[in-house]
């Protein structure tokens, strides 16, 4: 009995360790590569230990980038990505929360129609409507602007749906108690709904921040000025067909840099995020 339990545990640990290595090794290797020079990277085998080019690689990435990516500094790209991811995350949360609020707590004509219209857009991925959306952005003159980068990605049926489901779990009596206490629609939203949604908002923020951060196709389409690009697009542009023209050290450094903000968001929000996933407040 004890023995089988022990072997069971050994197997479990073994599997977990294998998984950690499988997940972690590419990251580790990228980091190692970002501390070596480009020529060292191009002449395998690459050492498993950090090299001495860390300042060179990150310095290059943060100041000049690569010629194929327009020689813009990755600092700017990081900033652009941050603006885009934050705008999308916050925009999505605000819009979807307000629309879910309207759908759940107010009786207005065509309420169900509105809900189903939002819901049906769930079936359409961004790619399906990307050409018409692009057309709209061009007509509005929003190419190479933050608005063009973010606004079309803000509306979210998924988030609206999630908030709707959460709002539906709020007992009618609570809403009525607030009415008796004299809280109007805005007051109820601010004082009751918002604090109750805290964990949901945190979870959604993490998910949508990463969604915004990792956007590739859309920023590639609506930005032509290299200075308006995002770090993900820049990273891709830095890589050339020929290895000789690719500053691999800077590419690896950029890849690591691109990882840091989402990781920071997850770590920062972890407590709330996990709570949001596992605990439903009574």
């Amino acid at each position, binding site marked *: 009995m004890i023995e089988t339990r022990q072997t069971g545990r050994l197997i479990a640990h073994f599997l977990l360790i294998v998984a950690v290595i499988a997940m972690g090794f590419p990251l580790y290797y990228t980091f190692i590569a970002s501390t070596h020079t480009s020529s060292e990277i191009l002449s395998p085998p690459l050492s498993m230990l950090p090299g001495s080019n860390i300042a060179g690689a990150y310095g290059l990435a943060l100041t000049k980038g690569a010629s194929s990516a327009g020689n813009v500094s990755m600092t700017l790209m990081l900033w652009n990505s941050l603006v885009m991811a934050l705008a999308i995350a916050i925009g999505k949360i605000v819009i979807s929360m307000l629309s879910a609020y309207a759908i759940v707590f107010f009786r207005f004509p065509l309420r169900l129609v509105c809900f189903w219209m939002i819901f049906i857009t769930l079936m359409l991925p961004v790619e399906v409507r990307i050409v018409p959306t692009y057309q709209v952005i061009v007509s509005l003159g929003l190419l190479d602007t933050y608005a063009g980068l973010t606004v079309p990605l803000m509306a979210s049926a998924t988030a609206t749906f999630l908030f709707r489901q959460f709002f539906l779990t709020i007992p009618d009596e609570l809403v009525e108690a607030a009415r008796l*206490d004299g809280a109007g629609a805005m007051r109820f939203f601010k004082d009751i709904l918002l604090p109750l949604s*805290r964990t949901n908002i945190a979870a959604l923020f993490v998910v949508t921040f990463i969604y915004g951060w990792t956007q590739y196709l859309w920023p590639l389409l609506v930005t032509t000025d290299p200075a308006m690009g995002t770090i993900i697009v820049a990273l891709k542009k830095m890589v050339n067909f020929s290895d000789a023209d690719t500053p691999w050290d800077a590419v690896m450094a950029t890849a690591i840099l691109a990882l840091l903000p989402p990781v920071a968001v997850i770590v920062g929000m972890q407590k709330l995020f996990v709570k949001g996933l596992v605990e439903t407040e009574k």
Partner: protein
Amino acid sequence: MAQVELRNVRKTYPGSAAEVIKGVDVSVGDGEFLVLLGPSGCGKSTLLRMVAGLESISSGDAVIDGKTVNQLEPKDRNIAMVFQNYALYPHMSVFDNMAYGLKVAGLPKAEIAQRVGEAAEMLELTPYLERKPRALSGGQRQRVAMGRAIVRKPAAFLFDEPLSNLDAKLRTSMRMQIKQLQRRLGVTSLYVTHDQVEAMTLADRIMILNQGVVEQIGTPMEVYSQPASLFVAAFIGAPGMNFMDGTVSGGGHAVTLKTGEVLSLGSGAVASAQDGREVTLGIRPEHFALTPEGDGAHLTLTADYIEQLGADTLVHGKFGTGMLVVRVAGERSVAEGDKLALTATPEHLHLFDRESGRRIG
């Protein structure tokens, strides 16, 4: 403090054809405790919610403090409501839960703190003011809900089955607290319950609802001793009243049961013109008396099934085609199969019209 009046109030929910409240008239006096009693689905909550302003009134008027409030928002009706599941704000401390309505109303901080402090003192909640509702017991949550109502100093309290989520023992003690509190504050109260013990113990007057119709409004004793209809007679009292079919006889002075026995109505005699009228006779289990066999006994019952409650013993037995329940003193030993000779005192006989179910005489 105020009067609450309902004038021919009716309710039909939108999208459903059936009328749920079919014309209710009642006036609750200043400081009076009125209990709305009735079986599940009879419209008690609906009626209360119309007073609160949480449901619209289809026709008729709700009047609070002399003012028709049909069109007023709940917050402007000067009422406070206590819900069955307490409806506390889960993210707010006990203090904030009680203070929220006052904050919204824009009262000064000092006044809020004072009112909440007083209410907490009264409800023995002072040690818990900083806690979240999640960290309170059911009884404590219930008291917070009460506190939230008290701090508003409303014209009327509305309770919708506030005790039904508590265990039996707590229910009894909370019942007493509510009653004392209401006496002390003198606030007009409407209290919904389907528990007749709660109704009897709390009420100044009880209003019994049946499918949206008021069957009777009266003090607990009136409702018990002078039930206006078969429905009320059956609903009030546990175990319920015994019913037997019969006809008025003896020039209005007696009732002849289907089984042949003749019971004198004594001072409760009805007009002689009633002779031959089909009636249902009601006798409460506690209003039978045991007599030695043959000594002027009215009915004989064969004990079938016996429930000993300690102070009393309930004897169930066949009589005619139906069953009778008789309450006898706990000391009296009864065994299954015993024949009991029973008399029923005339003043405790209730006559109801067989057709309409209304009380006669």
